[in-house]
């Protein structure tokens, strides 16, 4: 299937290098891509203070698998790519629900940043369904036991999958 993805900052080789820098006591046996679903939603926010960071065009990123929201600075570089169906995680949240729920996060962020008296106007502008590529990395320790790592190809962060 053809999907829109956030462009990789880290290739497989970069991931190899980054992981081996952390430890030498393992070998990588297998590595493959998995695409995680998000929706980038743009809102027009107005609470009267034009120079503030969260006033004007605001981007909210919705995790379409778990339903979490976070503010995004920019869309990043988006590219179209072909992906095998079974490497693309399906969305569990509908775009309509995401658009309806996201303003609550924006309102929360505004309140965290600044005490405001006016209830902000938050108007939906557009959305983009995108995927973030992750590497699933299968490793063997010195005793030849398997463990897995999830590697974020955009930020280079990683975590143990079965810890």
């Amino acid at each position, binding site marked *: 299937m053809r999907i829109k993805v956030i462009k990789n900052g880290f290739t497989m080789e970069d991931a190899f290098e980054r992981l081996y820098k952390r430890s030498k006591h393992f070998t990588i046996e297998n590595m493959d891509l998995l695409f995680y679903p998000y929706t980038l939603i743009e809102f027009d926010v107005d609470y009267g203070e034009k120079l503030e960071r969260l006033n004007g065009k605001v981007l909210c990123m919705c995790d379409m698998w*778990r339903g979490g929201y976070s503010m995004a600075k920019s869309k990043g570089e988006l590219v179209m790519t072909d992906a095998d169906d079974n490497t693309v995680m399906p969305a569990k949240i509908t775009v309509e629900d995401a658009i309806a*729920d996201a303003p609550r996060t924006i309102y929360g962020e505004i309140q965290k940043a600044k005490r405001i008296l006016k209830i902000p106007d938050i108007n939906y502008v557009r959305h983009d369904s995108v995927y*973030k590529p*992750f590497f699933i990395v299968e490793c063997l320790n010195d005793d030849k036991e398997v463990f*897995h790592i999830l590697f974020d190809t955009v*930020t280079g962060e990683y975590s143990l999958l079965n810890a």
Partner: protein
Amino acid sequence: MIGGGVTEYVVLMIYLIGMIGIGVYWAKHSKTSEDYLLGGRKIGSVLTALTLQTTSMSGYMFMGGPAQTYQDGYFTLWYAVGDGGGAIFNVGILGKRMRRLSYYLGCLSPIEYIEKRYPGPATRVIAAAIAICFVYGYVLAQFLSAGKTMSALLGVPLPVAIIIGAGVIVFYTFAGGYLAVAWTDFIQGIVMVCSMVMIFVLAWNQVGGLTGLNEQLTALDPTYTGMWGRGDAYLGQWGVVAGAVGVYLIGYMGLPHVVIRHMAMESPKLAKQTVVIATVWNQMFIFIPYIMGLMGILLLPQLDPAKGGDPEMVVLELAYMLLPGVLAAIVLVAIMSAIMSTADAQLMLMGTMLGRDIYQRYINKNATDKQLMSVSRICILVVGVISIIIALIRPPGVFDLVVFSFSTLGSSFLPSYVGAVWWKRGNTTGCVASMICGCIVSIIWEAADLAGPTGMHTFFIGIIVSIAAYVIGSLVGKPPTKEMQDMIDRAACKTKIPAGFATVNYKDIAPETNGVLTFLKDSNYMEERGFQPV
């Protein structure tokens, strides 16, 4: 009636409104069934420790425990010894491994966990039947306790007290789900421990410290300070002592509404911190009510049942004797907190079991996440309302059945929960045998009142029979599959993670990590892409 003044009403109302507020707040944050039923498995160590301990401690700690000490003297501290170490046993033995295994098995309820670890139709039916009957019994008992306490302390008619007390519990559990339950438990835990410490310090000075307390008790009756109870009532009965220590030391590991707390932990790594926090909270809270019972013998002789007094009022009478009005009213709130923190967890579990284990298993196998969440919510509301109605009617006999819920649940489930993560050979035959034997023996022992004549506590005999049945059944039955045994090994984390990776914890991708794990378990990605199962 002890309270009943304007101060008590105002403090209690502020507290109840606060609880409702927490329910409303978390109602907006539960988007998936995992959020609603398990707090999205993102409960930190402090919250886990406090919700675990407050769920374990019911109103008994403020009323029943001190009353028992008032009558039996130091003997009752056997229960406190067990309770004090209960958190270490519970989290230390089950915490980390159960969190991992429940995650690998993709379980949202403690019954589903039993069912998936010990697959088979008999496991499912028996576990659900025992849990639903006895946890429901527990809910009823707590609702009635909440009503009775409010009524006795404020002079409100019992039906009104039940509707208000239980109604608030039903509301915030229904609205906010697990997160509301956990946060209300957290606040309730702080109120409980602060109020207890406050009265304790003042009462301690009144009796002249531990030396003064012991000297005066010995002067009254030397057996008060003995280890066999007043008048040496339990002389040489080691079975009763073992039951008294064991019932709380290991008993909580068999209670579904308590062990579900392990499943909701943010990470298995939090188990160690949770043990420390829960143990500290325990040491501050557990021994105090029992010792206050001893102080009550000296400071409140009028509460002796022989003189027509009610020793269950020890803590409250001490509060009103030693504290100014507002602080005494907070103690009243603390008693309600103890009851509510147990009741909400049980009600939440009822909703989880009816939604996940009954509705999604038998009625609508293809239920969407939203449907499951709605059905669980409705079940909580329906069970809550029915419980309030039954508590108002109080049919004869119902409450006699629920008093031994603790022993029955503990005996039925403890070997299966512990064996699930510690014994790879533990299998369906063992699990079914232990649930049936533990449950039946507990019921017979209690119904025939055999604890007195045999000198064997119900929990003690129930757990011995249940463990024996689990071991024999597991040795006779077919071993678990290789896949299950591997999973248990992984839950034990026997794979040595290279030092560099063991400490990796990028919080930014933690949500995605959990999401990816769920996807990998539910899909055939790993198999198709040539990976070993995760």
